[in-house]
Structures are given as structure tokens and as C-alpha cells.
């Protein structure tokens, strides 16, 4: 089965959803429900909180879809709503997590890598373990990159970070994964 990702610029029924069409909302739910949940769960690590955040994000999206100017940006807009809700959740539960933001420095442009990564079955558990070990800010960037294949600009918009910061975070995450797979290979 072919995975549909945002970069392919699929036609989403955003205009119909704005008009209050239930079928359009069903299509948007079917498309984004699971990726959004996966993103949120990997950030908050709490099932009920993740379910609540996803539900609230869709309700907020339905309430404010009239303010969305560019229909092509629906995916990044929806993920941004969820990201903001994750931050609110951290503020309530683990305020120290938000402060975790490793040093960002000027780095060369991010080279494609983790996106093209193919992981063997025996490496899957290790991959997820490594993802969990990353700092929240790095994990968020990498998840958005892996799950929805968002562009660097879109990731910057979702996370509210500078473009340079996003590049830097992806660079560190990529280095960490490279190390993991090199270790496994040897």
C-alpha cells in the first residue's frame, strides 16, 4: 500500500470541510487522525492525553477553519494546533521538558537521509528507543519529518522555531541515527 504524504500535495477537501460537509471531515479524519495521534503520543507519552489532544485539535480546526487562508497548508496548520496543545500539556505536567533544547548552532543545510532510511525488522525496536531518547525539541522535528514528510519551512511553522534551528535539530537527530545504524552494521 502506498503511503500518502504531504509533500505529494494531495487534494484535501478543505473547502468542503469549511462549508460544514460531513464527508469532507470524514476524509480529513481518515487522513490525519493516526499520524496526528502518533506525533502527539510520541511527544507526550500518555495515551489518554494524546487522545484528548487529537480530539481537541480537530475540534479547534473545525471551529477556526474559516480563518485558514491557504488550503494547501491545512496539514501543517492542524499539526501546529496539536503542537501548541502539547506545549500546554507539558506546562501542566512537566514544565522542565520545555526547557530541554540542546545547543543550536549554524550548520550546513540538512542533507536528505533519515527520510530515505529503510529499517530492518530487528532494528525497529532500537529505532523507537533512540527516538524516545532524543530531546523533545529534536524528537518533534524528526517526527514531523518522518511521519508527514513536512518541509523544513513547514516544520519551522509548526514548532514555532527558526528555520536554522530546525536544520540544526535535524542535523543532530540524523547524526544520532547514523551512529545507531553504523553500530548495528558493525
Amino acid at each position: 500500500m502506498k503511503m500518502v504524504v504531504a509533500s505529494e500535495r494531495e487534494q484535501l477537501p478543505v473547502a468542503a470541510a469549511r462549508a460544514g460537509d460531513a464527508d469532507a471531515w470524514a476524509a480529513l479524519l481518515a487522513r490525519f487522525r493516526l499520524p496526528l495521534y502518533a506525533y502527539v503520543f510520541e511527544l507526550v507519552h500518555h495515551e489518554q492525553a494524546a487522545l484528548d489532544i487529537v480530539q481537541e485539535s480537530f475540534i479547534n480546526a473545525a471551529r477556526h477553519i474559516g480563518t485558514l487562508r491557504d488550503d494547501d497548508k491545512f496539514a501543517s496548520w492542524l499539526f501546529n494546533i496539536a503542537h501548541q496543545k502539547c506545549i500546554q500539556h507539558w506546562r501542566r505536567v512537566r514544565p522542565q521538558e520545555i526547557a530541554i533544547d540542546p545547543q543550536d548552532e549554524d550548520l550546513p543545510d540538512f542533507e536528505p537521509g533519515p527520510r530515505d532510511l529503510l529499517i530492518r525488522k530487528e532494528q525497529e525496536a532500537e529505532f523507537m528507543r533512540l527516538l524516545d531518547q532524543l530531546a523533545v525539541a529534536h524528537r518533534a522535528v524528526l517526527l514531523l519529518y518522518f511521519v508527514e514528510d513536512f518541509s523544513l519551512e513547514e516544520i519551522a511553522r509548526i514548532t514555532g522555531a527558526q528555520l536554522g534551528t530546525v536544520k540544526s535539530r535535524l542535523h543532530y537527530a540524523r547524526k544520532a541515527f547514523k551512529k545507531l545504524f553504523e553500530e548495528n552494521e558493525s
Partner: protein
Amino acid sequence: MKTPREIILGRHRSAETKLGAIGPDKLAAIARESAHAGENFSTRIGSVFDGFWRECILPWRRAWAGLAAVWIAIFALHLAARESLRPTGGELAATKNPQVLSALREQKQLLAQLLGPTASAAAATPKNSGPRSEQRRELFIIM
């Protein structure tokens, strides 16, 4: 071999049944409601203005036009009066002329002489600032 996306989504497939609780009908209803709310706000402002125009302005349009004309006339008159009160260039030049100033001074002196010393003294003496009872006593003595 799997992509990271497949692994991450695969890890959460079991949550799909729980995520099914979010109903598209509910979301569509919310979207419709907020769209109507937005429309209602703009149409409400429009209808208030429209009502004011139709009920207060249109039936009495001649009266409003007359009132407006009167106000314009008053404003024009006010401006004209201000213009006429302002000294002209010739008048300003005359006040600066030393001959005119000396003539004015002479006229003032003549007027003072004609009025006499009492008038000038009375005019020169400052107003009593003492208590009122003392002032009354003085008046009584003079009479």
C-alpha cells in the same frame, strides 16, 4: 524493510478504534456553526446600519438635508466673520507708523486733562482691599 513512517504509524495502529470516537458529523456541525457565527456578526452590523438609514435618515431626508445646509451656512458665516475681524495690511502698517503713535498719545493726554484731576486720581487709586466694614465708615464720613 520498513520506512520510519511505517514503523511509527504501525506502533499506534491499535489506537485507531479509540480515535474513531471523533465524529465527522460533530466536526461538520461545529464548522457550520462557526461559519454562521462569523456571517451573523457581519450581517448584524450591516442590518443595524441599514435599519438606521431606513428608519431615521430616509423618511426625513429633506429635513436632514435642510439641517445640513443650515450648518454649512453657519460655518461659512463664522469663517467670513473671522476673516473680517482680522486687521488688514494697511491697518497694521498704520499702527507701526511713529506719527500715528504720537498723535494717539497726544489725544490720550488731552482726554486726561479734560476729565480733570479727580477723575484721573480716582482712576489711578487702587481699589480698597481692606475689610468691607471700614469702607462703609469712610463713605459715611464723606457724606
